[in-house]
């Protein structure tokens, strides 16, 4: 048995008792199996919902949450107001909680685990950790089991007893130096003498705007209006700092303890409210108001300075910044509707084989620089290149002749005119020289032919490999593209 509610504990059944003994003590006991996975998931959902109180939320063990409340308590008046708001809201979700406010995470952990009770949160003013923690048991200092046993053997059961200890004496008594150092570290962290950064479960945003709703929102128009107002406010803040953001997240917190969020990404940093609203508009109906939304939060992530347009010297030759801005706005709208990465631009690569010479990359607001100037081979390159070369059955003169007849997509085509071969060797520098017997794994030279069939259709065909090059069996024929 791991945990029980007050009537069970009052009947003398303590955690650690086997279930059969507990059942014999209290026959009508209701027991549930421990399911740590769903517990963890529920804790994560609760942590996501806690974002409404503070942007920095960290998981604390399997049943606790640590919130960084610096700068958040003024929204509720003072820490007492925040404590009562927290307990009231959490009570609505159905959980019970024990709250403690302190100046250090270690002190808050210790107080919440031992001194705080269900409806009486403890608020320890910063600077009073020594007095506040003196009477708490040592097990709340987050030490390992063997260390705790050792401390108990020395009779050190309260944190106050550790204050006046001689550190060197402690390290002599402990068998391992790490245990002694751990005790000192945890003590110093709890007292605020050493730093303890908390790792939040998600990176906090750089800028955020919140809108509490006096009455819970139940329909889409209220959501739209709230989003308009928040976007205006957030974009104003961004403009004032000269920044733009590439990612906007909109959270809607419902009054029953659940939250839903929408995320919008842009190719370049933006701060125009109209553009952001347009991107959200497509997806706003995915938020289900449920029992009512009582807080809206809009966050801006990935902020960076916005480029102020500088005009190039010859405006008609170069793309101006405003053109690229308009194009990225268009790309954002298309990506918002279809999904990320749908708008692509061709990035030339420094490879000479024709199927590796360029790559489609998602458009991110900038034109790709030319790696190498494109070859001008008029008439020698296909106007349509298949994404994957398709195998064909071809009859050709050995060793170098163009195909005389081939079957592609189950249609036999008779070749009337042909030109070739254009020999394109693979990039030998990307493959290591083979060990003995591995020559078959190397890529093969390709001979490209331009052929025309009796109906005028023109193809770009290649033969993979040469006869007798020792890199595999007989060469195979493929269609790479269609010529104009």
């Amino acid at each position, binding site marked *: 048995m791991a945990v029980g509610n007050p009537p069970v504990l009052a009947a003398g059944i303590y955690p650690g008792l086997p279930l059969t003994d507990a059942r014999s003590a209290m026959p009508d006991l209701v027991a549930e199996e421990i399911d740590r996975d769903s517990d963890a998931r529920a804790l994560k959902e609760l942590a996501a919902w806690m974002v409404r109180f503070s942007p920095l939320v960290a998981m604390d063990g399997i049943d606790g949450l640590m919130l960084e409340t610096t700068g958040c308590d003024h929204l509720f008046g003072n820490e007492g107001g925040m404590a009562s708001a927290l307990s009231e809201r959490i009570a609505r979700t159905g959980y019970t909680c024990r709250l403690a406010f302190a100046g250090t995470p270690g002190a808050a952990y210790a107080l919440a685990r031992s001194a705080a009770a269900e409806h009486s949160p403890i608020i320890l003013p910063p600077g009073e950790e020594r007095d506040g923690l003196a009477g708490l048991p040592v097990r709340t200092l987050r030490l390992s089991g063997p260390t705790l046993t050792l401390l108990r053997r020395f009779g050190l059961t309260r944190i106050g007893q550790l204050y006046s200890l001689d550190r060197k004496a402690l390290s002599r008594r402990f068998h391992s130096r790490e245990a002694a150092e751990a005790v000192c570290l945890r003590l110093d962290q709890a007292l605020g003498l050493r730093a303890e950064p908390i790792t939040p479960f998600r990176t906090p945003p750089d800028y955020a705007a919140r809108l509490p709703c006096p009455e819970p929102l139940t329909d889409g128009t209220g959501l739209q209006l709230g989003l308009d107002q928040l976007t205006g406010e957030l974009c104003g803040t961004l403009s004032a700092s000269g920044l733009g953001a590439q990612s906007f997240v909109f959270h809607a917190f419902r009054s029953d303890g659940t939250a839903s969020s929408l995320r919008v990404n842009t190719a370049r940093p933006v701060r125009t409210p109209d553009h952001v609203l347009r991107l959200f508009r497509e997806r706003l109906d995915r938020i289900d108001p449920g029992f009512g939304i009582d807080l809206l939060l809009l966050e801006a992530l990935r902020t960076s300075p916005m480029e102020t347009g500088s005009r190039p010297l010859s405006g008609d030759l170069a*793309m101006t910044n405003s053109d690229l801005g*308009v194009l990225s706005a268009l790309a954002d709208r*298309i990506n918002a509707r279809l999904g990320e990465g*749908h708008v692509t631009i*061709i990035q030339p690569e420094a490879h000479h084989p024709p199927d590796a010479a360029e790559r489609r990359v998602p458009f991110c607001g900038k034109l790709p620089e030319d790696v190498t100037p494109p070859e001008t081979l008029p008439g020698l390159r296909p106007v349509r290149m298949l994404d994957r070369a398709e195998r064909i059955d071809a009859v050709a003169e050995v060793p170098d002749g163009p195909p005389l007849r081939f079957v592609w997509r189950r249609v036999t085509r008779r070749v009337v005119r042909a030109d070739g071969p254009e020999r394109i060797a693979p990039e030998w520098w990307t493959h290591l020289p083979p060990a003995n017997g591995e020559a078959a794994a190397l890529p093969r030279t390709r001979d490209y032919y331009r052929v025309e069939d009796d109906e*005028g259709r023109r193809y770009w065909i290649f033969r993979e490999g040469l006869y007798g090059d020792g890199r595999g069996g007989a060469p195979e024929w493929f269609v790479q593209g269609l010529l*104009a």
Partner: protein
Amino acid sequence: MTASGHPIDSILQKEQNKNMSIETLKARGLIGPVTAAPVQPAAFPFGLGLSGVHEVAEAGYGHWAAATGFVLATVQPARKGTCLWVSQSTVGLEAGHVPTAVFREMANGTQPRLSVVTRKAAEALWIAEEAIASGGVRQVIAELEEADFTATRRLALASEKHGVPVTLLLPHTCTGATAAATRWRVGTRLSSTNRYDPRAPGAPRYRAVLERCRTAPMAAGQAFDLEWNDETLSLHMVSGLAARPAAPRPAPAFGTAPHRKAG
């Protein structure tokens, strides 16, 4: 004030005391915008790539490359400004994509090209409309499986309003009326004789039939036999009759023809 007999002048004279500004004149309906719809030229290519929505369909299965070549040569999308190339994924599976080298060479320019691949034709048409309305794109080329009247009508209105030409590439199975200004059927023909090697394919040739033309209905049904010259990078018309190279015949022996007297 000019003393012409224009009705506006009389009204202006009548109400000299009032503050007649352009806004009030517009509000009263006395002045209107001075724009006229661009005139579609009555000669080849009948506005293809200049204004409005045009359709280019392949003449039969397997002529998609000819249709693409025709579009690149006529429309020349890389010359004017950013081009948006929208294609449906089924078209990509059938006929692949257009590599940059050919795009730049046949369209004779260096402007960038954004491409989007979608699954449905409706999405492709929506993207085309958004691109027209955005103002940053100067040309839209869309490869679709089908296009119906209502969708092309919206596209035509948007294209006219913003002045961005749209070209649709359609497969051979498309039939039916659409709101496009012209519809072409392009098929490939045997290429011309290669000057350097008689066994090699020469310059590509197409046969483009103007099926429908809204602005010049008399021209519908005309067939153009075109050849793409890759040195001058232009299309020009060729005679439709000769389909094979001239048969070689022996040169006349020296001395058989009588000498011609000069003078």
